[in-house]
């Protein structure tokens, strides 16, 4: 599963997830992308599960990009442990995701297949998502006509 090779500090503060994604809100490399619509911590397991769902649906065709990386460590005390004794050890890794962030991108397959693969990926994620396309202006223009 995804996690940093080495970190400067093992444990981190929780932090806040205010506002929308400043960077990473465009489909850059692929043709279709999956965009987060809510803020959340997405765990490395969830990212891997969603990635597998996409690649399995595409039968290893096309190309898939994972646009988030779980670089935040989350600590967790063992069960039935009394409080105190300092911060617990690192249990898992998460990616901090804000609304608007592109999570996955797909290219090299027909558009309907890419959309279906990303729908299956969204089933593995704890947040609401939507499918977006690289040519934002064309999408916005078609919406403006409708």
């Amino acid at each position, binding site marked *: 599963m995804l996690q940093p090779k080495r970190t400067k500090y093992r444990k981190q503060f929780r932090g806040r997830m205010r506002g*929308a*994604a*400043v960077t990473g*809100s*465009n489909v*850059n*490399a692929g043709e279709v992308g999956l965009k987060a*619509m809510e803020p959340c911590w997405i765990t490395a397991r969830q990212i891997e599960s969603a990635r597998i769902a996409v690649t399995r649906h595409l*039968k*290893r*065709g*096309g*190309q898939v990009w994972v646009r988030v990386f779980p670089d935040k460590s989350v600590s967790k005390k063992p069960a039935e442990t009394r409080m105190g004794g300092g911060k617990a050890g690192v249990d898992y890794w998460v990616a901090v995701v804000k*609304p*608007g*962030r592109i999570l996955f991108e797909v*290219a*090299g*397959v*027909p*558009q*309907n297949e890419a959309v279906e693969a990303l729908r299956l990926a969204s089933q593995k994620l704890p947040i609401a998502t939507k499918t*977006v396309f*690289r040519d*934002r*202006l*064309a*999408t*916005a*223009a078609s919406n*403006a*006509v409708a």
Partner: protein
Amino acid sequence: MTTSAVQLELQPRELLGKKVGRLRRAGIIPVHLYGPGIESRALQCAAPRLIQALAAAASSPISVTVEGEAGGHLAFAREIQWDPRRDTVLHVDLLAADAARPVTAQVSVALTGEAPGAARSGGSVIQQLLSVEVSALPLDMPAQAEVDLAAMTAADSTLRAADIPLPAAVTLLTDPEEIVARIDVPPGAVGIDLPEGEPPADSGE
């Protein structure tokens, strides 16, 4: 590929700063027009009209006129700000250009047709280069650069920047050897036999 400029009429804008939120709620997008030799102008336009003009123009210039003023400007969409959540346009920067001086711009590359090499090998076409940098006079600037995939006959064939057909008045600035598209064949892929010279049938999208 040379296009006549898309026409767009803009209105002078009185609301500035954070007050432009009111305009956006009313379906109007704030626009800024600036460039060499002209004073920076705060303008506005109805969202559907502006978006359609930007989509039609792509990387080619827009012929901009301001309501109640004589004369116009040739302008390029320098920056389009998007709302990351709603995917709506927040603000547009238009950069005025002199029609007699060459400009450089990023022109998006559009792949057309089917690659026989991909059908034969069971692979898919991967576009590696999404845009190329070109230099041309504003009115010669193409909206997009179209490349026909029919030349990709073999499974290992690639399209390079030099293979993009550009009008004579347009100069390619991107490295000509840069790969635009290649065929990606997954392990175990099964291709179909195509007679020589026959294009592949539609994949039924």
